[in-house]
C-alpha cells in the first residue's frame, strides 16, 4: 500500500488560510497546527534549548502536535543567516528525530555554492514540494493561495480601521471572524468562488456602522515578523490597541515581506541602508534593520508612536532595541519595546500599553483617558 503523505507548515497569524488553499488545490492533505496554547507551549519549552528564541519553541511544540495527529511532511522556509531562523528546520529535525518521530522535511531556500551540490538539491526540493503536476494546476493553486492571502490581509486592514470607530462595541470582531470563515471555506479549486466569497465577506464588513474620525492616535508596529504577525503569540496586541481606540499600522505583512525581501530585494535594501546609515552601518539579518527603518518612516508619516515587538533572545532585534533608543531621541518619536517569552503575563502588559497611549495623548496635548474609556 502506498503511504499517504500529510503535509503541515508553521502557523503564522492568518496566513494559514492561503497556504491551506495551495495544498487543497494540489489535492494534498494538510494539517494546520493548533494555535498557541498551554500544552503547545509546555512541549516546546521542554524540548528546546533554553537560549533559543521564542518562535523556535512555539514551532517545536506545534510540530510535535501535528506529528502526533499524523502529519509526515513538514514544510518550512530556510536561509543562510545571520539570523538564526535559517537553522530552525535542521535543529527541529534533530530534536524531533531524537524524540522518535518519523517524518520528512522540505526546506524552501535558494540554492548556494558549491553549485554542483546546491542546484540539484534545489530542484530536488522543488520536486518534493510540487511533484510532477501540470503547469496549469500549479498556476491555479498558486493563484488561489496568493489571492486568499491578499484577501485576508484586506479584511484584517478593514478590521483595524473599523474597531476604533465602530458604534456598537465588539460588533466588528464578530463579523470579522464570520468573514474569515466564509473566505477560508470557499472555493477549493475554483478561483471565481473565492472571489465571490471575498466580495460577500467584504460586504458584511462594509455594512458595519461606524463614525468617521481621522484624528485618532496613530501607532506603528515594527519588529520581528513572526511575533508581529502571529496574534496568538503577541497576546493579541493589535486587537488590544485598537480596542483602546487608537489607529494602528503594521509594518510587516506576508505580501509586503514577499515584495521587499524576495522580489524587490536589492532596491529595498539600498533604500533602507541609506536611511539608517547614521544608526546601523551593516546588514544584521532578520528584521532588525527594517525595525529601525520603519520607525523613521513612521515619524515621517506623522505617527504618534511606535511599538517594537521582539521575541526574547532574538539576536538582530536586541541590537535594534539598543539602537532604537537613540532613533527615538533624535527623531522625537516614542518607542515602546516589548519582548515576549513564555512568561509574559497579560495584566502587566495591558497596563504598559495603556500607559504608552496616555503618554502619546499627553504629547498631543489632549486629556488623559478620554479616548481610552472603552477598555
Amino acid at each position, binding site marked *: 500500500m502506498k503511504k499517504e503523505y500529510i503535509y503541515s507548515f508553521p502557523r503564522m497569524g492568518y496566513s494559514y488560510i492561503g497556504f491551506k488553499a495551495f495544498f487543497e488545490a494540489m489535492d494534498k492533505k494538510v494539517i494546520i497546527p493548533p494555535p498557541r496554547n498551554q500544552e503547545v507551549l509546555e512541549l516546546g519549552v521542554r524540548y528546546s534549548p533554553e*537560549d533559543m528564541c521564542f518562535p523556535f519553541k512555539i514551532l517545536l511544540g506545534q510540530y510535535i502536535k501535528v506529528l502526533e495527529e499524523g502529519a509526515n511532511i513538514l514544510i518550512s522556509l530556510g536561509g543562510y*543567516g545571520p539570523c*538564526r531562523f535559517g537553522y530552525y528546520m535542521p535543529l527541529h529535525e534533530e530534536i524531533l528525530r531524537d524524540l522518535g518521530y518519523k517524518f520528512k522535511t522540505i526546506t524552501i531556500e535558494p540554492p548556494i555554492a558549491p553549485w554542483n551540490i546546491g542546484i540539484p538539491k534545489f530542484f530536488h526540493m522543488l520536486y518534493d514540494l510540487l511533484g510532477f503536476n501540470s503547469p496549469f494546476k500549479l498556476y491555479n493553486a498558486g493563484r488561489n493561495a496568493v489571492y486568499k492571502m491578499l484577501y485576508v490581509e484586506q479584511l484584517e486592514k478593514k478590521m483595524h480601521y473599523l474597531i476604533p470607530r465602530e458604534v456598537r462595541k465588539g460588533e466588528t470582531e464578530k463579523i470579522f471572524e464570520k468573514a474569515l470563515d466564509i473566505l477560508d471555506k470557499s472555493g477549493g479549486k475554483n478561483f471565481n468562488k473565492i472571489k465571490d466569497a471575498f466580495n460577500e465577506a467584504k460586504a458584511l464588513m462594509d455594512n458595519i456602522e461606524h463614525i468617521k474620525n481621522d484624528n485618532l492616535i496613530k501607532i506603528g508596529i515594527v519588529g520581528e515578523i513572526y511575533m508581529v504577525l502571529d496574534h496568538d503569540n503577541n497576546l493579541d496586541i493589535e486587537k488590544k490597541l485598537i480596542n483602546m481606540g487608537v489607529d494602528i499600522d503594521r509594518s510587516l505583512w506576508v505580501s509586503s515581506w514577499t515584495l521587499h525581501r524576495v522580489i524587490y530585494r536589492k532596491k529595498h535594501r539600498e533604500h533602507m541602508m541609506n536611511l539608517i546609515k547614521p544608526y546601523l*552601518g551593516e546588514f544584521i539579518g*532578520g528584521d532588525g534593520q527594517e525595525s529601525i527603518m520603519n520607525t523613521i518612516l513612521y515619524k515621517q508619516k506623522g505617527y504618534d508612536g511606535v511599538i517594537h515587538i521582539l521575541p526574547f533572545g532574538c539576536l538582530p532585534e536586541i541590537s535594534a532595541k*539598543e539602537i532604537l533608543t537613540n532613533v527615538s531621541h533624535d527623531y522625537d518619536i516614542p518607542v515602546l519595546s516589548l519582548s515576549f517569552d513564555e512568561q509574559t503575563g497579560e495584566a502587566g502588559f495591558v497596563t504598559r500599553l495603556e500607559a504608552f497611549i496616555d503618554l502619546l495623548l499627553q504629547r498631543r496635548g489632549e486629556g488623559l483617558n478620554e479616548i481610552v474609556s472603552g477598555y
Partner: protein
Amino acid sequence: MDITIGIPRGLYYYVYYPLWKSFFDYLSIKTVTSIPTNKEILNEGIKYSVDDICVSVKCYHGHVKKLLDNKNIDYVFIPRVITESKGKHSCPKLIALPDLMKNAFINYKNKIIEGDFYIGQKEKKLLNEFLKIGRNFDIEDKEIKNAYRYAKNSFKKFLNLKLNGHNFLQALDLWEGKDIDQVEKSDLLIGIVGFPYDIYDDFLNGGLLEKLKTLSVDFIVSDMIPQFILRKQTKKIPKDLFWHQSNVALKAGLYFLAKKEIQGIIVLSSFGCGLSAIYTRLLELYNKKTVKKPLMIITIDEQTGDAGLQTRVEAFVDMIRMKLGEL
C-alpha cells in the same frame, strides 16, 4: 605620532588582537588595552547595555566605557567583524557592535573608530578597510599598505604559534616575546568548546582554565584546531552553521568526540548567547547518538559564582578519572 588608541579587551580581542596591534605598532601609534575584566567593569557594562543581550557583549560595554573615560586615550578602536570565512557571518550583535557602542555612549561618538573586517574573502576588501582606518590619522596610503603587510605577516606568525599547540594566551605571550611556563604532561586531556571570548576571559568564566590547571588536567581549546580538520567534520551535521565562530566550536567539539585521547568535553557558553544554544544541542544529540563521552555544559552569567563552579569542575574531573579506573 602622538596618538593613543584604546583596544577593549573583549570579544574579538581574543582572536584578532595581534593583527590590530602590529598594524598600529608599525604606524607608531600607541595602543592601550583595557585591564582584564573585573567586577567594576562588568557592572558598568550591565548599566549601559539593554537587559536581554548576552553577558559577553555587556562586559564589552564596560571595557569600552573604561577606555572612553581615560583622558590619555584619544580614540577607541571598535572592530566590526562581518565575515571570517566565505559565506560565514559573525553573530548579528557583533556585526552591529560599533553601532551599539555609539548608541550606548552617544556623547563620546567622535572618539570611536570603527573598522569593517571581511576576513577570509578578497584581499582587497581587507586592505581597503585598513586604508580607511589609517586615513583617519592623515597617514599616506603607501605607509598604510606597508603597515598592512607587516601586520598580516605578524599575524601569520601568531597563527602558527596557535597551531603548534599553544592556546591564545600562551601564543600571545610568545608572540610578544615573553616566556611561558612549561606545562607538565598530564594523564587527562579535556576538550574545551566555546567562543574564544568566553574561554579566555578569566573573570567571566570564573577562572575555569586555572581550575583545570590546579586539578592537573591538560586541556585543548576549540580555537586551536586547524581548519582542514574542522572541514572534515561537516558531514556529521545536517546543515553547515552560518556563523564562523559557532562553526569552529561545533566542529571542534565533533572532532573531540571522535578523538580517543580526549576523555571529556566542557562546553562553555554565556547566558543569552543564541548561537551557542544551537551548537550545544547539536553536540549533545550527536554525543548521545554515538560515543557517549562525558560532556558538561557550563553557562556563565553575571552571577557566576566561584564556589559552585569549583564543585562542578571537580566533580566532572573526578567522574572521568573514575571512569578511567584511576580513583
